[in-house]
């Protein structure tokens, strides 16, 4: 720690930082634009000017940009120096010469960093009397709105989009006061992280187009902290509602997981919540029925039946647990396909019982060598791909350190690093977006990806299983990967369940275990299919096909299906047979799907926005999501199940009154979840003055009139039984506990930039620690290597080995139900190597029929330069592609 003097007062601060972040950490309101805690400093906007003095005798000083100056011991600076104050006001005055005076009609208004900084500097009087320059705007697709006239040229958009996220289709054009940020021509932004532009942009150039469809000021939203439901990473988000609709998703900073960013699936995938295909009323045989009546009738029904329950990897721990308790442990089924269940269990056992720790995403960003086996991360766990994009900068960053340039000095660091990249190896079935930054890529069938992994593990530690008949190319590559991993300080191995191969997971585990023996800093990250796959797997349950068997054998005749479309976990034939054999089918879910059409009973579950719950992410971190708003007739699945259980006289469930009582039961009864109640604060929690944490900003408007068309008196606000938050603006306006941040706001900081005030230090953990609790760490119980090395993949004449291909938009169930995301879902296809297509005399786009897993699919052919011959890629979850048990052999029938 060193001492610096700010306006003559001494402060003890961290060395190695720049003065801007230091001043912000100390709580000073110093305005800035081009600097961003994740993007570093470039010195473009000149907004953060301060005075710096040579020593105590220097009275004159000189203006410096605080973002470009490293902290030094005994440094003397002034924020309040009149010249610095004038200059900062002058910068705003310059920016305002061209900025439109359209705050009243601008989507950013009220949460605009430019507005905040303008007020902060005191600029109020316009001296510029000439015309403003104007620009033409572009249609950037369904996610992002473009209004270039508002641009203040801070360069953050391109620095995030290109430099940080690796996008190639957004750039800066022209020069002088005509600088333009956009695409070379109008069109959909290609990056999977484009939505972050709406938060990175300090004003209203890039805004959320889905919010624009039902626009509301940020101050008019009811908001709550929640967790993204669209992959297994568990990014922290904020969701905002008005008039009973979910209006927007914003990033919620988490120092260890998503940091400042989220992916477009997470940001724009929320629209399913507002879909007309929601189930909003209990139904029996297609007819609406009163909630209490439904509860009573179902409780009677289950008393008289042999009922089984099918859980869900996308439902909360509490909901799965409630179902398990309602039907009994021996009647609870996990609700995923046989293969998914096996893969998830294997993955969880590697994470829980293996020898290698799972690093957080933040730690993965700092990895200096990465080996990916089988995962197309950009499409299966997008934010992990973004983390990997940062990891390749780690080794080149040593050059930067050597030249004594601080890493936050992005302007200088980027020129020193140039195109140099640290080791990244991507072994996948087909090309991925990370290929362009990879040191080497490897394209093969899953079996051969696994074999490469086994070979690498063996090269690192000869006691790991050996394998024969590797090609020369594979051998050389394995040697290079092993060498690079061994030479690194913080290697991370990444794999997952998405290529449906247990061998790939085992190979990844072997590589990590082998490395771990040589380097204790080794990490392994596995991605899983759904947001609560880990939670469900840890909770345990029987396999779905056993449920099918049980009903087939007439050992059960009623089923409660929890937030699960069985047609995504079993073939139509099998699921149809199962459902038609069941005498009673009760489906608890929030949205309609193939399974709900077969249910005699439909119970309207809350989506994440209307529910409290806990999810366990891919690192084993349990995280609470909070209900955003109440919707009539809609309740959490666990609440429905508790009511049904209580009505049926279930002794365990009778005392369950709220979220706290069910987590307490979960914590006591399931040893894997001991302590789960500590993930968030109890419903009794109140702020220091005895008040709740308000879900609404204090400027929330219209409360007394928004329902005036229904009744003139203001209805009583809903009461939150499950948390210490209020559903209104009533409450304490002070820093809430880190797990209960409904929105970021601080006096003078109305934009998301106010997150600085919520952190212990800019860019570090949230005050009070980042939320969530890891349920487990690698115990090392399973220290032996996996030994079953698969056979080399051998193409079979006239057959194709079906492998899954994932799409960020389309492969995940819920996000694809919304309008904006469904716009981006590709049409289904069959991916074929050029060689196979030539052999079969098939051309790009030609329609064929593909028979696999006893099903037939009419699909157009898509050619791929990299997929192995003998392998066919099938896009998961796209419209028309029902569940297929992969990997298995398929046959092409030409329709010609």
């Amino acid at each position, binding site marked *: 720690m060193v001492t610096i003097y700010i306006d003559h007062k001494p402060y003890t601060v961290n060395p190695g930082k720049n003065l801007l972040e230091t001043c912000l950490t100390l709580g000073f309101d110093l305005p800035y634009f081009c600097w961003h805690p994740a993007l570093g400093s470039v010195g473009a906007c000149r*907004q953060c000017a301060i005075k710096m003095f040579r020593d105590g005798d220097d009275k004159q000083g000189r*203006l410096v940009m605080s973002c470009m100056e490293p902290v030094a011991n005994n440094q003397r600076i002034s924020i309040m120096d009149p010249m610095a104050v004038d200059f900062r006001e002058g*910068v705003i005055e310059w920016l305002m010469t061209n900025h439109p005076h359209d705050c009243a009609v601008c989507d950013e208004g009220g949460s605009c960093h430019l507005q905040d900084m303008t007020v902060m500097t005191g600029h109020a009087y316009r001296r510029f009397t000439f015309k403003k320059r104007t620009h033409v705007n572009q249609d950037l697709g369904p996610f992002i709105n473009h209004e270039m006239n508002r641009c203040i*040229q801070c*360069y953050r958009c391109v620095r995030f989009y290109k430099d940080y996220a690796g996008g190639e289709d957004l750039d800066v054009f022209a*020069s*002088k006061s*005509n600088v333009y940020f956009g695409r070379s021509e109008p069109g959909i932004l290609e990056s999977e992280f484009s939505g972050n532009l709406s938060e990175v942009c300090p004003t209203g150039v890039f805004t959320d187009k889905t919010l624009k469809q039902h626009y509301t000021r940020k101050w008019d939203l009811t908001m709550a902290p929640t967790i993204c439901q669209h992959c297994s990473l568990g990014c922290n988000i904020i969701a905002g509602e008005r008039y009973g609709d979910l209006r927007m998703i914003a990033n919620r900073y988490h120092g260890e997981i998503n940091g400042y960013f989220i992916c477009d699936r997470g940001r724009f995938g929320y629209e399913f919540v507002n879909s007309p295909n929601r189930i909003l009323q209990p139904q029996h045989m297609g007819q609406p029925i009163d909630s209490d009546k439904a509860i009573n009738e179902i409780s009677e029904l289950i008393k008289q039946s042999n009922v089984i329950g099918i859980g869900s990897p996308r439902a909360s721990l509490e909901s799965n647990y409630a179902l398990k308790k309602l039907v009994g442990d021996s009647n609870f089924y996990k609700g995923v396909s046989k293969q998914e269940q096996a893969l998830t269990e294997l993955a969880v056992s590697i994470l829980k019982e293996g020898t290698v720790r799972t690093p957080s995403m933040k730690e993965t960003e700092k990895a200096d060598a990465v080996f990916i086996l089988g995962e197309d991360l950009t499409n299966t766990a997008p934010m992990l791909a973004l983390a990997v994009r940062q990891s390749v900068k780690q080794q080149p960053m040593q050059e930067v350190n050597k030249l004594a340039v601080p890493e936050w000095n992005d302007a200088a660091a980027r020129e020193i690093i140039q195109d140099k990249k640290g080791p990244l190896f991507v072994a996948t079935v087909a090309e991925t977006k990370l290929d362009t930054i990879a040191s080497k890529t490897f394209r093969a069938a899953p079996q051969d990806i696994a074999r490469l992994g086994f070979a690498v593990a063996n090269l690192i530690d000869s006691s790991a299983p050996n394998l024969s008949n590797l090609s020369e190319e594979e051998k050389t590559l394995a040697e290079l990967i092993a060498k690079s991993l061994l030479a690194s300080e913080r290697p991370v191995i990444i794999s997952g369940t998405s290529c449906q191969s247990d061998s790939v997971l085992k190979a990844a585990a072997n590589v990590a275990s082998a490395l771990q023996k040589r380097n204790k800093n080794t990490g392994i990250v596995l991605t899983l299919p759904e947001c609560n796959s880990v939670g469900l797997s840890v909770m345990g349950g029987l396999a779905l096909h056993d449920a099918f068997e049980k009903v087939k054998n007439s050992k059960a005749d009623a089923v409660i299906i929890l937030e699960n479309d069985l047609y995504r976990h079993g073939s139509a034939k099998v699921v149809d047979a199962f459902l038609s054999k069941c005498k009673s089918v009760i489906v608890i879910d929030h949205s309609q799907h193939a399974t709900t059409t077969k249910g005699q009973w439909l119970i309207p579950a809350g989506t994440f926005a209307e529910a409290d719950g806990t999810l366990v992410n891919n690192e084993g971190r349990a995280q609470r999501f909070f209900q955003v708003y109440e919707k009539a007739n809609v309740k959490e699945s666990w609440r429905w199940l508790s009511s049904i259980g209580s009505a049926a006289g279930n002794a365990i469930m009778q005392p369950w009154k709220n979220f706290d009582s069910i987590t307490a039961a979960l914590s006591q009864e399931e040893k894997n979840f001991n302590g789960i109640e500590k993930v968030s604060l109890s419903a009794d929690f109140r702020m220091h003055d005895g008040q709740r944490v308000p879900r609404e900003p204090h400027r929330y408007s219209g409360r007394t009139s928004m329902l005036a068309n229904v009744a003139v008196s203001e209805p009583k606000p809903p009461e939150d039984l499950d948390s210490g938050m209020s559903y209104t603006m009533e409450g304490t306006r002070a820093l809430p506990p880190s797990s209960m941040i409904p929105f970021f706001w601080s006096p003078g900081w109305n934009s998301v930039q106010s997150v600085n005030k919520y952190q212990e230090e800019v860019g570090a953990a949230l005050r009070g620690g980042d939320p969530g609790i890891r349920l487990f760490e690698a115990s090392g119980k399973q220290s032996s290597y996996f030994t079953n090395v698969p056979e080399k993949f051998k193409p079979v004449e006239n057959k194709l080995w079906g492998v899954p291909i994932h799409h960020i938009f389309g492969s995940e169930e819920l996000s694809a139900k919304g309008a904006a995301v469904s716009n981006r879902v590709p049409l289904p296809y069959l991916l074929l190597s050029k060689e196979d297509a030539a052999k079969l005399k098939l051309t790009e786009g030609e329609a064929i029929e593909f028979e696999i897993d006893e099903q037939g699919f009419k699909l157009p052919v898509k050619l791929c330069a990299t997929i192995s011959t003998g392998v066919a890629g099938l896009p998961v979850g796209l419209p028309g592609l029902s569940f297929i048990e992969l990997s298995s052999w398929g046959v092409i029938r030409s329709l010609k």
Partner: protein
Amino acid sequence: MERGWGEVMERPLTQHIRKDGRPLTLKEYEAVGGYQALRKMLKLTPKEVQTLVKDSNLRGRGGAGFSTGLKWSFVPLDTPKPKYLITNADEMEPGTFKDRILLESTPHQLIEGMIIAAYAIQANISYVYLRWAYKTAAQAILSAIDEAMAKGYLGNNILGSGYDLEMHLHTGVGRYMCGEETALLNSLEGKRATPRAKPPFPQVSGLYGRPTIVNNVETLCCLPHIVNKGAEWFQKLSLTGDAGTKLYGVSGKVKKPGAWELPMGVTLRELIEEHAGGMQDGFKFRGALPGGASTDFLVEEHLDVKMDYTSVAAAGSRLGTGTVVILDDKTCPVGFVENLEHFFAQESCGFCTPCREGLPWVEKILSAIDSGEGKINDLKLLEHHTKFLGPGNTFCAFAPGAMEPLQSALKYFRADFEKHIHEHRCPY
């Protein structure tokens, strides 16, 4: 090319320029002693070459006047390859045309100088970054590089010394900004011509992140002569403490505008009255930009200032490129400065706020004043800009340079500005 100076004066850089302006061929250059310095230099160690040039007190002729030898010494000699030497031949300073003469007529002199500089820092790759519009120079340099390659002055193992140097010509697309050395590096890499953060300086992290020296054409052309005749000789060429000769130029309403190689430190009066033939009949001298568009005006009282880095700085301006632009009494100073600020506003790269937004504002105010629509408060706004676009407040030296003629015009020609405003018209 005007060569009116007496034979007694030495003009090492320009003495061999042909009357018809055609570039000297390799043969012609060799016949007047060309590439002898290269042979001599290859016997020295790089450190010795650096010391020689440091001792000669050669200061960069691009405008900043930094010691060339000292600049080189910041390049780590033991660092792994590659390292780069770059000639800044992006001469776009308004009123400046001195490098053009050297480029078009004695390309081999530049190449020889480049080899010396590259050797001194042990660079093996060199570029000539040439202004887009200098088509004739481009031809001359290309043929000279070919000739030098064929003769073994460039390429591998130069003259059996074991030293390798490749040389390429790169032409810009006509942006003033590319003359700023770090923006030049970005441009050469194919990126936007915006300046880079310093530190690190190009000497340690330049082109493609490698150690790089960027020198001006005239600076490099001095090197063969310093190697041939020594540091002391070079110092003695000058009339003052700043060593060598200098290519001076004069433009404006003088009788004989042109450029001349003269001892460093001739007075402004000598330049105008003797070499440029004095003011044209009917025109009176009102002021001059001593070193291109981005230097402060000097006026009548400064005519006896010695045109070297130290003396011009003491008079409140900068020697800059040493090419003088004259303001006469029939030209409106407001219009004159407006024209300059128009240029700067157009050429701003748009990276930092003060330059991108401030310069167009300045231009618009000047235009308003010039067309009789100015208000007296406008002068305060202009002064606000001269203060807030000062050094350190902007990302690079571009905007501070643009403010130099404006701030001095407001000082010396204030009455003209006020007259425009009060009379609501341009009095010229």
